């Protein structure tokens, strides 16, 4: 029963994946419309699953890698639906839906340790830190996916070989706008996440920055995005370079999320959050 809503969510996301892949191949508008509704339904159930967890833990579920994935998937889907509503880049669904489905599967597959959460991980400012960071991740993830689509489409147009993708992908300007929009939203969120995190660290650990691998990697990603945003606004960087940087930045972020927990050790790594029984 604990995972009932999660299984429903997973089904919805896999369903949406199928629909968007069908849309991508057959280019029928109907698949996209149904896909949006299935995805929105999935998000609703996903929200219920999160509420259930918050209820039982008493704080935002971000103590294990699986929980963090669940949270990230939620923000990603929410951000995507918001984006689709504002500027329809429909094929993005064919990337976001499977990604969300995989992340939710990850939550279900990974061990779900029970036990009291370290008191270090409770508190209002920490919740703000996690929320801001996750929302930032979601926006920057969309920028990265948009960047991938941009690079594919740009290659088709520059290479003058119009294949399968040329017709199915949106125009370069649409994809570049996506990059810009997600960057201008994601970067402040990430910045806010970093600031609240370091303030909280100062409050609890007595220092702003601990040279923890996750912190260092996040700072590198932040610098990449800062450079990108600055160059975009000042010199007018766009297109290929912007797409490449958005992809690089997000890869570093993925390292902070996945790598820092699997290979590196530090106080940010999830394994340390749950106190043994």
């Amino acid at each position, binding site marked *: 029963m604990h995972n009932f809503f999660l299984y429903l969510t997973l089904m919805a996301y896999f369903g949406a994946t199928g629909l968007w892949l069908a849309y991508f191949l057959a280019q029928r508008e109907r698949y996209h419309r149904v896909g949006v509704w299935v995805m929105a339904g999935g998000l609703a159930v996903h929200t219920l699953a999160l509420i259930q967890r918050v209820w039982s833990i008493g704080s935002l579920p971000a103590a294990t890698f699986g929980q963090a994935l669940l949270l990230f998937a939620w923000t990603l889907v929410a951000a995507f639906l918001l984006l689709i509503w504002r500027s329809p880049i429909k094929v993005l669904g064919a990337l976001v839906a499977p990604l969300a489905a995989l992340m939710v599967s990850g939550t279900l597959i990974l061990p779900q340790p029970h036990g009291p959460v370290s008191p270090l991980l409770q508190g209002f400012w920490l919740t703000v830190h996690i929320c801001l960071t996750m929302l930032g991740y979601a926006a920057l993830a969309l920028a990265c996916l948009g960047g991938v689509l941009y690079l594919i489409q740009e290659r088709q*147009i520059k290479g003058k070989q119009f294949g399968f993708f040329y017709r199915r992908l949106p*125009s370069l*300007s649409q994809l570049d706008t996506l990059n810009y929009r997600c960057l201008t939203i994601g970067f402040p969120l990430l910045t806010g996440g970093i600031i609240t995190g370091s303030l909280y660290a100062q409050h609890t650990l007595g220092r702003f920055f601990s040279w923890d691998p996750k912190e260092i990697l996040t700072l590198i990603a932040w610098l990449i995005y800062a450079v990108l945003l600055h160059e975009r606004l000042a*010199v*007018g960087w*766009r*297109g*290929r*370079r912007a797409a490449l940087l958005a992809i690089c930045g997000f890869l570093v972020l993925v390292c902070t999320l996945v790598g820092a927990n699997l290979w590196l050790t530090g106080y940010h790594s999830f394994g340390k959050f749950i106190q043994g029984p």
Partner: protein
Amino acid sequence: MNLLLCGVNHKTAPVALREKLACLIPDVRGAYDHLKGWPEVSECLLYNTCNRVEVMCVSEAPEEAAARIREFFARHPEITPGDLEESFYIHRDQAAVQHFFRVAASLDSLVVGEPQILGQVKQAYREATENRATGPILNRLVHKAFSVAKRVRGETGIGDHAVSVSYVAVTLAKKIFGELSGKNVLLMGAGEMAELALEHLKGQGAGKITVANRTLERGVKLARRFGGEAVSLEELPEQLLSADILISSTGAGEILLTRDQVKGVMRRRKQRPLFLIDIAVPRDLEPAINDLDNVYLYNIDDLQEVVEQGWQRRRQEAGKAERLVAAETLKFLHWLETLEVYPTIIALKDKAEAICRAELKKTLGQLGPLTPEQRQALEVLTASVTQKLLHDPIIFLKRNRRPRRPHQELDLVRRLFNLDPDRGGDYHEKE
């Protein structure tokens, strides 16, 4: 009853012959009067496009009708029977339906998938109906052809791929800029292809148009035609700052714009994308420009290549469309076959109704005064008895449409119910 389609098209006849035949048509009324005058033809439709002159008709005597149409074509003083010998084709029934569907779906066109042909067929049909030349069969055939054409367009990608250089330029611009509204176009030099592309871009809502020409005079003339302004070629780099699309087709014979120039311009443009189309031979723009970020350079060969790809895709999609047409052809033929049984079904129903009426009259006379409800109940009773009785024979007629000897079965039903009382005895003598 047979369907017959005769005519000539671009595959069988040279343009000179098609031109002469097309001359027969402009007087549509006269042509239809002529065709309708023949007893062999019960319905007909006449259409001509730049690539074909064809007559579709319904006839009881297809051989004679075909000969008549051939005579009609040969009426033109400059056409000898020998001209028609090789180019005149006659399609019957299935082949005729299929050919007509293919024409309407633009599968038989010179430019496969071009959208104009459907409009031309629609126009021809309008003329035919105005002249009361079509009947139930052709009406249905034509409407089916329209729906087949619509399905082909919607379900296959036959019209999706640009197959002309100027149109390729427009679709490319759309893939780069998304919306073309507000995008400024700079035209360098002039030429048919460049002007066609400009025309297309304007049709998509392109913004300011500027013409740069070696001789300002000619530039001004062109600019006036497209509602833009004229500048001299020396201002080119400056002009590139505000342009988004450049179409170049001068006869300069030398490179007018180098990579370094464009690089400088891009910096000053803040990297806003630039789409350069070089249709001049020899080229006006340095090929290395394409290496720059956010600059997309296409020369005439690149565009031709895309056109060729478009053709290949269209040919692939045409295969799908052919299957669709074949399926719809069979459906139509099936409908045509059921058409033959309708007179018999109607005769059966008429007979049953007549019997009902006569018997009701007799019974009502004997029963004396009845309430309206009772009277209605009797009517319903007789009607439903006959209906139920006739249900099976009618289903038999409608469904069993591919028997070995269709006419004998039809005759059997007519004899069984004595639908042709005058000819009752003939059947025995015939068999």
